[in-house]
């Protein structure tokens, strides 16, 4: 079975500061990795994903995540956050090669303060 650990349930930073949201996973088989974002009172939106190839993936709004197989991590980073980045962020894994369920972490609530 797979599991995902998001080490911080809440992170609070000031606007324009860098941020890292941590995600570690456990799986006996190869997985795909995802970050989803949930803005207040909205549904889940895909932020970025790692399926194969380059271990560094980027989103259109400046977030990036790096797949580290040896450390089984997929941490999310942004060098300079905006107030509009305030949201809950979920890391998720899925077994490779099948239409299979996502296993989510508990989420990290990111609050960006002015």
């Amino acid at each position: 079975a797979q599991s995902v650990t998001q080490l911080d349930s809440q992170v609070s930073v000031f606007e324009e500061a860098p941020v890292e949201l941590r995600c570690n996973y456990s799986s006996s088989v190869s997985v795909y990795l995802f970050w989803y974002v949930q803005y207040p009172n909205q549904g889940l939106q895909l932020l970025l994903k790692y399926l194969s190839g380059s271990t560094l993936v980027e989103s259109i709004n400046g977030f990036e995540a790096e797949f580290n197989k040896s450390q089984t991590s997929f941490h999310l980073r942004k060098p300079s956050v905006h107030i509009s980045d305030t949201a809950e962020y979920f890391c998720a894994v899925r077994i490779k090669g099948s239409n299979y369920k996502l296993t989510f972490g508990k989420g990290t609530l990111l609050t960006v303060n002015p």
Partner: protein
Amino acid sequence: GAGVSQSPSNKVTEKGKDVELRCDPISGHTALYWYRQSLGQGLEFLIYFQGNSAPDKSGLPSDRFSAERTGGSVSTLTIQRTQQEDSAVYLCASGSSPPDTQYFGPGTRLTVL
């Protein structure tokens, strides 16, 4: 194009009543998933459909929960004899084949009084 839609957006019911939650996936998506989001449990998988069949029902918490999908499109999640612990946001997602990304709907917030 249109995304995943769910109805109703909010449902308040009394303990013991049955409820039906509906999901309309993105057109052409053969895979459909139901998840539940609650404060105590986070995001939990409930059931997965490929076409009209459900190869994975492992997340359904009890036999009060059932789901069906017809015509390879719309899906209905039914909860019988609702309990207060069923209160949660029920999320539907769909995806294409070969497997890639799951796209989520806005969810149905269920409150059992």
